[in-house]
């Protein structure tokens, strides 16, 4: 998860100003979103992969892909029949046809998802949440909105951890012979449901207590707040603009290469 992705380190990206990294992240994400041929998207993805390898190590290429593989699989399965054109490679039924256009579209989407996820992963692997929030505030995000993001980062992983705890608790209540039974997907699904209900009960119950916790810590006392942790000293704006222009140039180069 995003809030647990950060690993302290001394790589070039760890030492880069988070405001600049945030700007570059937006640029790189925009590059993935702009309609481009599959070869260009592949170059952008390879660019991110090279950056990951050079800064935090090649093995870090895989965790972001692992986290989205069900989506990627779904895209590969669902996209081809909706984009028909060019050579037809095979068909399963009248409507499920796999053609060159379908494969290209599926690959484009897979590379786009993978690229954006990997870019965000690299950003959060090398930037702590506090630095990220402070950067957003430096760019003018109001404090309340920044707090919402902080709390989301605090609670989303907690909910996942909570779901794990609840599933553990429910597992311990099940009968001894169940694990010897044959795999039954309906039964397995029926076991997910109580866990989700428990998480929902917890989440709904936590709304007023979260609000209470915020108020007794002075949230809303006045429109002003100070910051405990400062951003690193601002690099010269000229230098930041220079770096951003170089990255933009690389992106354009990759587009026309």
């Amino acid at each position, binding site marked *: 998860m995003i809030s647990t992705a950060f690993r302290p380190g001394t790589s070039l990206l760890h030492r880069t100003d988070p405001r600049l990294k945030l700007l570059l992240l937006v640029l790189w994400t925009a590059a993935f979103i702009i309609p481009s041929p599959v070869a260009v998207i592949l170059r952008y993805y390879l660019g991110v992969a090279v950056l990951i390898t050079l800064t935090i190590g090649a093995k870090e290429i895989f965790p972001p892909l692992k986290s989205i593989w069900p989506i990627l699989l779904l895209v590969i399965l669902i996209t081809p029949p909706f984009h028909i054109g060019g050579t037809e490679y095979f068909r399963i039924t009248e409507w499920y046809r796999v053609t060159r256009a379908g494969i290209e579209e599926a690959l484009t989407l897979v590379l786009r998802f993978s690229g954006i996820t990997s870019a965000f992963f690299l950003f959060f692997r090398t930037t702590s949440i506090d630095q990220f929030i402070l950067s957003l505030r430096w760019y003018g995000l109001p404090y309340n909105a920044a707090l919402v993001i902080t709390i989301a980062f605090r609670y989303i992983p907690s909910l996942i951890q909570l779901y794990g705890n609840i599933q553990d608790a429910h597992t311990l209540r*099940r*009968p001894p012979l169940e694990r010897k039974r044959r795999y039954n997907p309906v039964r397995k699904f029926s076991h997910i449901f109580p866990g989700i209900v428990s998480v929902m009960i917890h989440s709904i119950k936590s709304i007023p207590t979260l*609000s209470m916790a915020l108020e007794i810590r002075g949230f809303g006392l006045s429109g002003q707040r100070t910051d405990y942790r400062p951003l690193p000293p601002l690099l010269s704006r000229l230098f930041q603009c220079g770096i951003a222009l170089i990255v933009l140039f690389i992106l354009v180069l990759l587009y026309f290469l």
Partner: protein
Amino acid sequence: MKPLLEISDLHFTYPQYTDTDITPEPLFRGLDLIIGPGEFRIVAGAPESGKTTLSRIVSGLVPRYTGGDFRGSVTIGGTDIAEAKPQELMPKVGVIFQNPDEQLLTTRVDSEIAFPLESLCLPRSEIAHRVQRELERFELSGMAERNPASLSGGEKKRLLCAVLAAVGPPLWVLDETLDEIDPRWQRRIIGHLREMKAAVLMLSSKYAPEVAGLPDRPYILAGGRIMTSSEKLTETAEREGLVLRQSPGTRVAAPAPNGHPLISVQDMEYSYRDNAGFKLAVEELELRAGEVLTLAGPNGCGKTTLAKLLCGLYRPSRGSIFLGPAPGPAGKPQPHLSTAPALSAASGTLRTSVAYIFQNPDYQIFLPTVREELAYGLKEHHVKSSEIERRVTEAARLFRLPPLDTAPPLMSYGSRKRLQAAVYWLLDRPVVILDEADSGLAIRDLLELIEAFRSGSRAILFITHSGAFARRFSDRIVLMRNGRITDEDAGVFFSEGTSYD
């Protein structure tokens, strides 16, 4: 001396929940309480007596969030809480909730301490100074960058104490805060509070006449009022089940265990992937039929980790857990121990043989009524409907649960804990792990809970920070430190604590 907190003639009734026929009873009926500056006042009360509500009224959260019929007056330092928002009360009163997870807001320990100071618009240098001071005072410096969610229950409560200490309000309201904190830190927290000269309203489910050298006896919250008369305190505490005394019909002395081992551990190791500094290593441990084994140790020493290994939720990275006795050096069961063949247990087998009662009861409660909650496990075991009804009724009586149609989310924390225990009692597992079951429970509830589970064919592993409970209920006490079982005298460990023992 001018009182700091003055509650006079407080009446409070929660509003009626829509779509229910339950008419709420008045919770407070003319409650009076005065606390002077620097006074340390403990108020003991049974579950559902209104301790949490009282803490939230004093901090301005109730009835603001809940509604309800509120009469009487509550003032802190001359400020009427009815006229102030909770934010405005922050410099005057600080509260620590019973469940620390409900109060943690940020993703770093040091940011958590800094949060209220940022709200007060203190300069950065002052915030940094106070954060550093409280990190050191509560020995959290090594955890400053950790996510508070990853701390143990006791460490989270220490962090919340550090947050309050950084703000420094003259009145602290602590809702069962010493529960889940190890004996050494219980004493140190009381010491720090006295050193800071803060007035303290400490709410507790246990009544101990003398706590860590405090001059005043605790008051008791019962029947919607606070009892202060010294003659009636002991009598009321006994009636409310708040003291550790033998009550008629309750067997607390256990025969020496000589049963066969139900579960054994041999050369087991376990480490967390994201906490390289911690490693659990247990060479040998046995739980025998009929015994109650207490597992004690400082916060974060690995007690819950060991419990989760024993019930199959975690898989050891080395070594084995056996259902039955561990095999001898040659791989053969040791004959003098063996009544059943040794079986290196797969996680699934452990999960269905060990009942693990979580610290937080809400993890295991998800159905709309007490009846359905109790019946769920029996239905999964394909028990007949008539038998389910009989056993559910019996469990509800034994664990003093409210009417079977009650919705669990509307029950108190203590009642939900009893419900959770009843669920496992119905499943009739041979090994039961009670993880800090005394937290939030009155002593009578705990006694009844242990007695309900105690039988000649069952083993109980009881995790607690209370030496009094350990000595009272257990046949053996095992002490853990830094992930290992030590030979240290548990008595010395418990003696570092408060006089809740």
